[in-house]
């Protein structure tokens, strides 16, 4: 395994990403060739990167310094370090990038000639590279640089289709939030530096409790913004859908995980054993995030926004898992922490796979029908069978259905919660009960959300001509989605393999190997890690999969055998005077989740509008019914804030800067007087 010792693979991978960007720009005269060449290079980089990280995780030297250049500019140091944690995130990045780049080859082709496609490809490749550097930065300032570049590049990718006003708006919200997030990261990093005197990433000992709190809170807000933790999530449902589908897949699939990585790297590794309340805060934030995200996802009819909200839900699950791990560590239960962290890291990987597949599939639907609105779709399962199958698979994983990977990792999160509950003697136990209940609710709503996505979008009849004339996605798009769904299935069937990969990162973080959880490759049994007296549950995916398959087969056979006789039935009795079934008789996307919206009125605050056209009240020519709901965070937190800042700016302009020269002279005089008073006092 000499190769793993040198880190050559990471070098090759990064240089291939860079060359993808350069290739795209070099071939800019010929956009189609540039597109293919650039994404081919990215794919090659991803393959090498995946192999290198896998090798590193299984047989690598642990910590590997790839580069360390001390510049002449103060505080600037180019330091690239790969350790087990980095390698794990690089693995997720590489796998996703491979599929997304393959997808991009055909997905972006229609843009050729219309937009500056080579520039887009170059930005895309650099974006991938910047994420790779975020995961491997060994120096806090270099991390910040990679982070900033990643943010700015993703901004440009979000506003790529800038002719749409809402994309520009989404980009602006994103950029503002990102800038604020960076300010918090900067505060955290510099506070660390002021207390330790080094920018090197690693354990920072000897911080006062106050400094620890400042650092934790700064990183919580800074990374929380990027991850979309409620209430810092407002930008995410705008920005993720605004980008082209391949970028959405990367942003939702892996960019939000940079925040998880940051929390692990800076807080868990950096600050050591967490303070007790940190975990509690994370747990509560995570649950609020999961519930808020999923309930908004459920009522959303824009497919990509629905997926973006679902990303927020999954971030909530990740943060919850992180919170459980923090609590376990601060209570001195590293074994439990290792279970929770393994669940979290596993779920991060799984989410990258299924959310990537979902965004890619929805992107294909979007290109085929030119709409993202579920109300305009329907019946796609006939027109786009392959894409539909992929979406079903990915949606099953996202709704945490066994035997897919989403279930395996959520199950582990639940086990960690249950174990914490059993071990906890204090009032904190109630928190775990609530957490488990909230996660269960989130899971149920997620299932309903994806049922809605699939049921309204794929089944039934086309609601518009565009949906009726949809065409199947090109081959590369189907292959890339298929690969991701295959990953979801395989990881779900053999979670032991995932735990094997996870072993070293988690071991490094908690000192306990999570591999004891897996019984062989095929099952999960967390009792090995538990110190509680009560035996925990076990999960055997193959058994469950077999059961599900057997049940499905039996049901199918039953339908064939029993129902076959009644297949042809023509009745006119119960059709209420309508002769044929048409698209308008189907459940609409809004109708699907309407009751939920009404129950949780206080959250969504829907405003409805019913407009009838025609002379007769009871027989109008047409009725239009629309419901709008605004997120309470936007309505009560952000909009007032933005309005206040703008008003302040306007007010300042009209009262401070009146254009009156006398007033300006007075300011100078006041400044002078202030100075003289200071002179007397000082």
């Amino acid at each position, binding site marked *: 395994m000499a190769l793993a010792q040198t880190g050559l693979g990471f070098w090759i991978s990064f240089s291939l990403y860079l060359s993808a960007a350069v290739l795209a720009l070099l071939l800019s005269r010929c956009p189609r060739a540039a597109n293919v060449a650039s994404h081919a290079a990215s794919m090659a980089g991803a393959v090498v990167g995946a192999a290198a990280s896998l090798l590193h995780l299984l047989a690598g030297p642990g910590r590997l310094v790839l580069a360390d250049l001390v510049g002449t500019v103060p505080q600037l140091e180019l330091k690239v370090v790969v350790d087990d944690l980095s390698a794990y995130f690089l693995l997720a990045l590489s796998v996703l990038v491979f599929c997304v780049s393959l997808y991009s080859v055909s997905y972006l082709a229609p843009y050729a000639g219309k937009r500056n496609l080579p520039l887009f490809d170059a930005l895309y490749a650099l974006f991938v590279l910047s994420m790779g550097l975020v995961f491997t930065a060994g120096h806090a300032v270099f991390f*910040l640089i990679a982070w900033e570049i990643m943010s700015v590049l993703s901004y440009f990718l979000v506003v790529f289709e800038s002719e749409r006003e809402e994309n520009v708006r989404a*980009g602006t919200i994103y950029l503002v939030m990102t800038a604020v997030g960076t300010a918090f990261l900067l505060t955290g990093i510099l506070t660390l530096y002021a207390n330790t005197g080094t920018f090197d990433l690693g354990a920072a000992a000897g911080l006062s409790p106050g400094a620890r709190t400042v650092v934790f809170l700064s990183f919580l807000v800074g990374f929380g913004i990027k991850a979309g933790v409620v209430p810092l999530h407002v930008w995410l449902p705008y920005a993720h859908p605004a980008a082209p589908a391949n970028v959405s897949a990367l942003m939702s699939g892996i960019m939000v995980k940079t925040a998880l990585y940051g929390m692990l790297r800076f807080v868990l590794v950096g600050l050591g054993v967490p303070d007790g309340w940190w975990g509690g805060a994370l747990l509560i934030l995570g649950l609020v995030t999961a519930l808020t995200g999923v309930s908004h996802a459920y009522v959303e009819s824009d497919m990509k926004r629905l997926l973006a909200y679902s990303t927020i839900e999954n971030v909530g699950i990740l943060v919850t898992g992180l919170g459980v791990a923090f609590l376990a560590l601060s209570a001195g239960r590293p074994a439990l922490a290792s279970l929770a962290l393994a669940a979290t890291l596993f779920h991060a990987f799984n989410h990258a796979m299924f959310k990537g597949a979902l965004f890619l599939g929805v992107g294909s639907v979007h290109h085929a029908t030119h709409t993202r609105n579920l109300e305009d779709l329907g019946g796609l399962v006939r027109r786009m069978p392959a894409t539909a199958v992929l979406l079903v698979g990915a949606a099953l994983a996202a709704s945490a259905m066994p035997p897919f990977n989403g279930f395996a990792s959520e199950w582990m999160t639940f086990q960690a919660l249950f174990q914490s509950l059993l071990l906890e003697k204090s009032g904190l136990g109630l928190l775990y009960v609530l957490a488990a209940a909230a996660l269960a609710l989130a899971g149920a709503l997620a299932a309903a959300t994806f049922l809605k996505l699939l049921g309204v979008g794929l089944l039934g009849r086309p609601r518009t001509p565009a949906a009726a004339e949809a065409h199947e996605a090109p081959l590369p798009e189907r292959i890339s989605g298929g690969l991701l769904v295959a990953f979801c299935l395989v990881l779900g069937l053999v979670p032991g393999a995932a735990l094997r990969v996870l072993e070293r990162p988690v071991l490094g973080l908690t000192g306990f190997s999570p591999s004891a959880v897996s019984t062989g490759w095929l099952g999960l049994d967390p009792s090995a890690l538990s110190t509680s007296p009560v035996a925990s549950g076990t999960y055997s995916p193959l058994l469950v999969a077999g059961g599900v398959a057997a049940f499905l087969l039996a049901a199918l056979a039953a339908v064939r055998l029993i129902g076959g006789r009644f297949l042809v039935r023509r009745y006119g009795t119960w059709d209420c005077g309508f002769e044929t079934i048409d698209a308008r008789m189907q459940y609409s996307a809004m109708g699907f989740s309407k009751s939920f919206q009404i129950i949780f009125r206080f959250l969504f605050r829907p405003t409805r509008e019913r407009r009838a056209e025609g002379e007769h009240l009871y027989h109008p020519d047409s009725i239009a019914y629309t419901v709008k709901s605004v997120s309470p965070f936007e309505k009560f937190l952000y909009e007032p804030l933005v309005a206040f800042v703008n008003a302040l700016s306007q007010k300042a302009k009209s009262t401070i800067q009146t254009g009156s020269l006398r007033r300006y002279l007075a300011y100078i005089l006041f400044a002078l007087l202030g100075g003289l008073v200071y002179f007397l006092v000082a």
Partner: protein
Amino acid sequence: MELLLWLVPIVALAVLALPLPRRVRHAVSLAETLATAAVATFATWTVLTQGTAAPAMPGNLFYLDAVSVILLDLVALVGLLTSLYTIGYVEEEIRRGSLDPKKVRALYLLIHGFLFTMVLTLTLRNLGGVWIAIEATTLASVFLVGFHNGKAALEAAWKYIILCSVGITLAMIGIVFLNSAAQGVLAEGTSLDWTALFARADSLDGSYLKFAFIFLLIGFGTKAGLAPMHNWLPDAHSQAPSPVSALLSGVLLNAAMYAILRTAAIVNRNLGSSLYTGRLLVGLGVLSVATAAVFLLTQKDYKRLLAYSSIEHMGLAAIGIGLFTPLSLFAAFYHMINHSLTKSLLFLSSGTVLQKTGTREIGRVGGLLKLLPVTGPVFLLGLVAIGGTPPFSLFASELALLTSVFQQKLYVLGAGIALLLALVFAGIIQALFRVFYPRPAAVAAARAGTAPAPAAPLVPGEPNRFGAVAVVVLLALILVTGVFLPSWLTKLIDAAQTILTGQGGG
């Protein structure tokens, strides 16, 4: 040899005063700035090897050390690139009919006179002389601000001269008290020489000094654009012809900051601590950054927006000078260098944008990336850079500055500045990125389904090829200095920092 810094502009001014064809004027202008740059390079070398450059002359007026030579190099560099830009700018203005060819002589005379006064500010030993030179910069540049003779331009010039004259008067009171502080300590003729003042700072009268510093700070601070004395700046910088805006924002503000720097060093040395000056400077600095952050948000004029950003960056430099630690001074110098280059890049590019589109209103400009194939992308990257985004140089200096704040355990101040910087960045980007999206008229027309407005469609292309070269050079410079500081520059900045803190013998 260094005296050529004075001689070259004087000769050039004399030549430019002659009736000459326009081409020759362009050539003389370029030659003057080239020669200045060459002499400045030589002077830099002298300072690097000998510590100071003070050629013998009657009165010993000339004095250069690391502090001033850094800023002098900026004047020379930005002056050179600006004069290159001006060639194309003038031709295009004449082509568009917005500049009377007869006024070219006046324009060049004023620009070079203005450059000369800045060189003087930075090369005089006597603080009284510095004061006179700064007043002269106002006089030379006020006609440049009002050069276009429009109502807005004249109003801007009017505000500029009134406010800056008041400021300079206050500064004069400060100079007088500075002189009093030196009474009985220094000989009659040298009582305002910086070298003498600084060398004997310990024995100067402290309360006079403290009193003088208030006046000097408010007075020169007016000229440096620190809030709340900044109100002339947005008008003046936005109304001036674009090459002049670049000089005003890029180098003139530094020259005013230079005077503050020198006096603060004397006071700090006398008091043995930087607390007295530091509180004032940091206070004004934070106020400037905050003011800029608030006013940036609702700007509709892109040149004004850039002007507000200058206030912000001067505020940051003031904070660095206020803290007066080795790292903070390093950061302040580094920041002034980076701001000079980045802001002149932006003002020069914005001048080309203005010539191309004919409007200063952000909402009426669009599609710049296509419209200006070189300047457009450079402008975009310049905006990203001015927001303090890596790998551009302002990121590195802002980081160094914030690090120095945190090093002093001023967490709240540091976090506050970081947040304000984020606000400023967001303000600039959200206001200005609109100019790169498709033209609003085209979008509106596409939405309404009608043909584009009948106004003549703009043809993509660079109106000012010289200018395009200048801004590309600047972009390369801010990219390089963001990741790599040549050792001579690090050495210079370190030397400047050592001179000011008086460590290492001063």
